[in-house]
Structure formats: structure tokens, C-alpha cells
């Protein structure tokens, strides 16, 4: 496997949780390539934020989109060419805030793309404001006396919206991340992986997570109700245990298969246009 790095200078803070995600995704792409998967079919997409810089650091096709807007181009290119292996990286502010509607619709459509959410529960690049998954009372630069709103549980929302692969990892669990990423990418349908990634500068939660996370065992990921119960175990607000691993997985029809794959040449096209015009006399 060729080196998947680029000449771009990495500008993440030392200790940033994004490094684990970068290492995991590069390792998964390399292993896919070694398994014979054509690496040129891969497109990495990102929104805007610290997490999104990842596309500059991986030497594969990429589409560096706008804040909140990774999912729509990912959907567009997958429908345009179903051979593409489309992976969208975004932060929690990006995907769960500005771009939330797109996630809901991607799940609803079950388009075969993978969304990897670098969820550090704070806006890093804009220097420390609360996000949709920050706990109640979070003191950020836009909420100096603490937020007055509860966080959302994005995985619960994804489950009820129709996502067909739902998992969670942390940036302190590289082997689990690699396993989940590979499975999510190979899953046919909409996959979402919420990665509890830590912003060392604005919201350092390493110790907090290390104390609470555990890996799901004896969990039936094909059972919707069990998945819901497990997803609800931690609401991104309480200090309960935090389950990691695959919550839910099902096989369902994918969006891109519902489109015409007919292709017609210019002469056929002209003849058909003439027919339509003849009917409209």
C-alpha cells in the first residue's frame, strides 16, 4: 500500500482526539486497498471545523465541503456513481447543528455512505462554544453562565430516522475505532459512527470518558428495541456508563439503487425529443 499521507502540515493541537481518527481511517483504507479494493473509488468528504481538516491529510480523492454540508454532496456523488466509496467526516457542531437535517434525510434514505462524526462536544476552531451535544450548563464563550438547553442524543435520532448502521467509539480506543470504521464503510446503507473525540484545548474529557466507557457485549445489534435501550443508556448529559461498539445494524434497500441506469446516445435522445414535440402540437 502506498503512503496515504500528504505534504499538508498538520495543524491540530498536540493531544487532539482527531489524530486517532486519522490513524484509524488511514489504516482502514490501507487495509481495504490491501484486500484489493480500488483506492481510487474512495472519496473522503468533510465539512468545516478542526475535524474536517482530515481530508487534507489523506492522499485520496476528497471533497472539502461547507460547514454542515458534507452529507448532501456525499449523497449526490453516490447516486451519480454508485461505485464510489463515500466517507463523510464532520464535527458535532457541523453535523448535529448546522447540518442536522441532512443527517436525518441521509438516514431516512439509507443512502450507502458513511458518516464519521468527530464528536468533541465543543466548537474548537471557533474557540470554544457549546454544541448540540454539550451537557446542560456548559460554560462556553457564547454561554458564559452555562447553557439553558439539554443536549440531543444524536444516535437515538439516527435510529428513529432509519440509519441502518449505528456505532460509537472513542479517540482512546484505536483498535475498536478501526474495527468499527471498517465495518461501517463496508456496510451497505447509511452508517453513522459517533466518535467521542477529545478537544484538549477547550473540553478535555479524556479522564471522564476513560472512567465511564465500556464495550457492548451480548448485545443483539439486529434488535431495534435493544439498540434503543442501549443508545438511551447515556444521554450525553448524565454521568452514567457510556456504551461503545455497534448498537444497530440492519439490511435495507439503499437510495442509489432506486434510480434509472438507462443510458441513451445523442441520436436516441434527439429522436425522443422530436417525439415529445410531435405530441405537443
Amino acid at each position: 500500500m502506498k503512503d496515504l499521507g500528504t505534504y499538508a502540515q498538520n495543524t491540530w493541537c498536540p493531544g487532539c482526539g482527531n489524530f486517532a481518527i486519522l490513524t484509524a481511517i488511514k489504516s482502514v483504507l490501507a487495509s481495504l486497498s490491501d484486500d484489493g479494493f480500488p483506492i481510487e473509488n474512495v472519496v473522503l468528504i468533510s465539512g468545516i471545523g478542526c475535524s474536517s481538516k482530515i481530508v487534507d491529510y489523506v492522499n485520496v480523492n476528497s471533497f472539502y465541503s461547507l460547514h454542515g454540508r458534507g452529507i448532501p454532496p456525499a449523497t449526490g456523488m453516490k447516486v451519480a456513481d454508485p461505485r464510489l466509496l463515500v466517507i463523510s467526516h464532520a464535527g458535532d457542531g457541523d453535523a448535529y447543528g448546522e447540518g442536522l437535517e441532512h443527517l436525518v434525510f441521509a438516514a431516512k434514505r439509507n443512502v450507502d455512505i458513511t458518516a464519521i462524526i468527530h464528536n468533541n462536544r465543543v466548537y474548537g476552531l471557533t474557540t470554544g462554544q457549546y454544541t448540540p451535544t454539550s451537557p446542560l450548563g456548559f460554560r462556553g464563550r457564547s454561554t458564559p453562565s452555562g447553557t439553558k438547553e439539554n443536549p440531543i442524543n444524536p444516535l437515538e435520532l439516527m435510529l428513529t430516522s432509519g440509519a441502518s448502521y449505528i456505532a460509537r467509539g472513542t479517540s482512546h480506543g484505536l483498535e475498536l475505532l478501526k474495527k468499527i470504521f471498517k465495518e461501517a464503510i463496508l456496510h451497505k446503507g447509511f452508517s453513522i459512527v459517533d466518535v467521542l473525540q477529545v478537544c484538549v484545548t477547550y473540553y478535555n474529557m479524556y479522564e471522564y470518558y476513560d472512567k465511564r466507557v465500556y464495550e457492548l457485549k451480548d448485545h443483539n445489534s439486529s434488535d431495534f428495541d435493544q439498540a434503543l435501550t442501549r443508545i438511551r443508556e447515556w444521554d450525553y448529559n448524565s454521568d452514567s456508563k457510556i456504551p461503545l461498539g455497534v448498537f444497530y445494524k440492519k439490511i435495507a434497500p439503499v437510495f442509489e439503487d432506486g434510480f434509472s441506469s438507462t443510458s441513451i446516445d445523442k441520436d436516441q435522445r434527439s429522436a425522443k425529443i422530436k417525439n415529445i414535440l410531435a405530441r405537443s402540437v
Partner: protein
Amino acid sequence: MKDISILIGGKAGFGIDKSSLVIASILNQLGYSIYVYRDYPSLIRGGHTFSIIRASDGSIASHKDKIDILLALNQDTVNLHKARLSGGSVVVYDSDSIKPETVDGPWKAMPVPLAGIVKAEGGQEIMRNVCIIGAMAKAAGVSWQIAEGVLRRHFPKEIDVNLKIAERGYTASQEAFKIDQLNNPPRSLLSGNEALALGLINGGLDAYLAYPMTPSSPILHSLAGLAGEFGLKVIHPESEISVMLMALGFSYAGKKVAVGTSGGGFCLMTEGLSFSGMAELPVVVIMGQRPGPSTGLPTYSSQADLHFVLNAGQGEFPRFLVAPGDAEEAYYWAGVSLNIASKFQVPAIILSDKNMGEGTYVFDLAKAAGNFREESPAEWDGKGEYKRYLNTSGGVSLLAFPPDKDAVIKVNSYEHDEMGITTEDPEATVKMQDKRLRKETLIKDELKRYETVKIYGNKRSETVLLCWGSNKGVCEEVAKKLNVKAVQVVVLSPFPVEKLKDALAGANKIIAVESNATAQLVRLINSFGSGVHGKVLKYDGRPFSVEELTKKIEGLMR
């Protein structure tokens, strides 16, 4: 009689729209040029809806205020449109729902018991419209054979009962005048929106995305209906934000893609438009104007978004902007817009409006197709290392599309280097900004071979009606009538400075005709130092009628 106007009116839900197309088709069989203006409020049932169908032996693309035949399906139609009648007019009305004394006047009143006939024949209430069409055909001296042929084509379902009802309307009516049969074969009838849809297909469209919004939804409906036949991918996503960004995903994958909307939806698309400019991802945007600000008058027309589309999106980037004036131009420029977007990797905007999009015109394919040929963008030859944003002399970099085993294709909304990797370097920033802007020079060169400014009427006249978009039709007709010149600016960006200068050479009275309150075309040409001598502005959402514009221009010429 060789220039006839028919108005059919009633409530939404009466089938006014369909009826107007059937009437247009009947007159089309007689060899006339046709124009249909549709007027309807923003509701599903009720209100007042009407269409004016005009047929003329001259080439027309506008309506007249005066009506020769009024087809009234309800009392409102009589009350609201009586003022359009004159001594020679005919009023065909439903005597079961309209008071005869309200129809009185110097014109000929023709009561037909529509509801009674429909009931007697066991039809549904909506079939009153075929009954009144039958009565209209007789009143206008059209043979039953012609009316029947058209009805058979338009009502394949329940044709027998429809025909019976129409024939009884025909019999209950009397011939009031005779429309001459002309020697021309009937032509296709297309709305501007249908022409845009077919023009995009002809230009090699692969995918179309849109969120429903008047007046552009019919393009979505047409293309969704044709998707299977032409192998198109047509998607109605969750919002216009998604529409634009999904389209850029298609574009990245090498597909020719277009989106359609109106002002409010375009507001949401502007972040994606600017992204298209920065990442050099081709996309065609159809922007159908309606009166604003904000929700405005959803089902009416306007030309108030010219400066909005010219300036939409943060930052500076070249864009192509064209405003076709009728169905044939819509078809032609839809294809050209796809070509220009993909060859120069820029957003191309087609500025339409409700009058153009939902107006119906006769359509001549040979004229509409013109010199158009589908073109493909220049693709990378596979030699050496691929650079998505290679800084070339013209500014256009060669394209590669994934999957390409020899290329890593990186596009970026940040400022980027030639590889597509983010940069904040001052020199690289200037280089890449210049690269993108240089493409405008290439587009200007390309446009030299196109008719970006058109001239009508008396070409030697020193008086000029200056217009753009759907006002082309009425300006052309009024210019001919008053023996003056009309000049239509077709392409608005890059602005055809030289061609407009040539078209206006020798003019000493330039009158701008626009459907907005602030003379937006005038503002644009003033920035190139041209200037006008008078303005006729209309911003009530309705199109200029021939009479109205004639009177205004005559006033200014005095």
C-alpha cells in the same frame, strides 16, 4: 379575423389551465402563432383563475387586454373581465350559474346551460370546461372535426362522455365570427419551463435537483416524468441548501447537473453557488423570478432579481448569466448554459420568470436548436501527476473524475493550492484568485459567436425599446407596431458591452422596459457607461399587455 384573444376564467379546480391548452391547441390547428398567459392565485381550490389564449397570424409572445371571446365558468369571471369586452366580442357563459342581466352589453351574449348539459350526459362537474370549449369552437367558426381531434388527444380518459358534452356545447352555441384557416402547419406548443427541461436534456443533462417552488416546479415535474425515458437522475431533496450541495456532488463525479428554484430558494443556494465558484464545480441554476421581497406574490412575475443573481455568493468569481425571452430561446440557452458551465467550470445561471416559465408559446425545433452542439469539458490526459487546480494561462484546469486510478482528485471550498490542498499563503491566494477570474476572459471570447444581444423592429430607428427576459415578446410587437427598434439583452454576465453598444448605435431615445421598480438593467448598463432616456417600469406582478406598453411608449415618444 387573424388576431384573436380568448379568456377563460373560473375558480382554481375548474380545469382552467388544461382548458387553455386545449383551446390553444385548437387554434394551433388553424396555423396560428399562439401565446397563453396564465393568471392564478396561490391556492389549490377557489379564488379566481384565468388564462388568456391569443392566436395571431404574426409572430407573437404577448397578450392583449381586449378580449374577443370571454368564456365564463362563474360569475366572478364576468364581473372581473367585462371591461375587456367591446362591441364585437362574444361572451359564452354558464347560464346555470351566471345571472344573464350581468352579461348584458353591446357584445354578443351566448348562454349555454353547462351544468345542465353535464348532468344530463352523466358527466362530472369539471366537464363543464369541455362543454364551454365546444361552445367556443362554434362561436369562433371552428369546425367540429378540428375540435374533436384535439379533444381526443387531450382527454384520452372518458373520451366518449367528454366528446358528447363538448358536442352539446358546440350545438348550443352559434357562430359569431369566422377564424380563418391559415396555410401553416400546426407547431408544437411548449411552456418556457418545458422548453428549459427539454433544452437541458438536449444539452446532455445527467441529473436535475430541485425543491418545489413556483414558478420553477414544472421543470422538476417534467424532468421527473422523463427521467426513465432519458436515463436522468432527478431528485427532490430536503431543502435548496441540499439541492445545491448534492448537485455539486454530481458535478464532482463528472455529471452534467442542473438545479431550479425561485428567489427564496436561491437565497438558500447562495453558499453552494459561491462554493461552485471557488471549487470550480460546474452547475446550471434556473432561477425563476417572482415578485419579492420575501414570499411576495408567489404565482406572479417579476424581474427584480437581476442584481441578486449577479452578486449572489460571497467573494469574487466569474459566472455566466442568461435571460431567455421565450420557449425557443429557453431551449437553446439551456443547452448553451450546460456547455459553458462545464467547459469553464463555473456556475451558469438561467434567469427566467413566471411569465416566461409558465407562458405557452409555439415552438419550432429547428429555430430553437440553432447552431447548438453539446460540448464536453477538456479532460486530463493521464500524464504525470494530476493537479485539479493546475494554474493554466487561460485559468481552466483539465478535469479528471473519480474513480481514476492515476489521479487523486481533491476539490476544496477553502483557498487551495494546485493540488486542492488548503492554503492561507498570500502569494498562492492571489495566484488562485487570478486563475479563477481569468476564466471570464475565455467566456467573453466564447460568447462572441453567440447572439447575446438581439434587435427587432425598425433597425434604423433612433428610438429603442431596451428589454430583457420575458418582456422580449411585448417589446418586439410594440416596436413593430410603432416602427421603432427593440433591443433585447440576452446574456447579462459576462456583460456584452460591445454588442450592446453596436445595437444602440445611433439611438437618441432609449426607453428601458422592465418588470421591476428600480430599473435593474439600467443600473447594470450604467456601470458600463451607457445610460437611457426613459423608463417604463411595471411591478404589479402582471405582464405588460400590448395596449398598455404601446400607450406608455407613445407617451414617452411625444
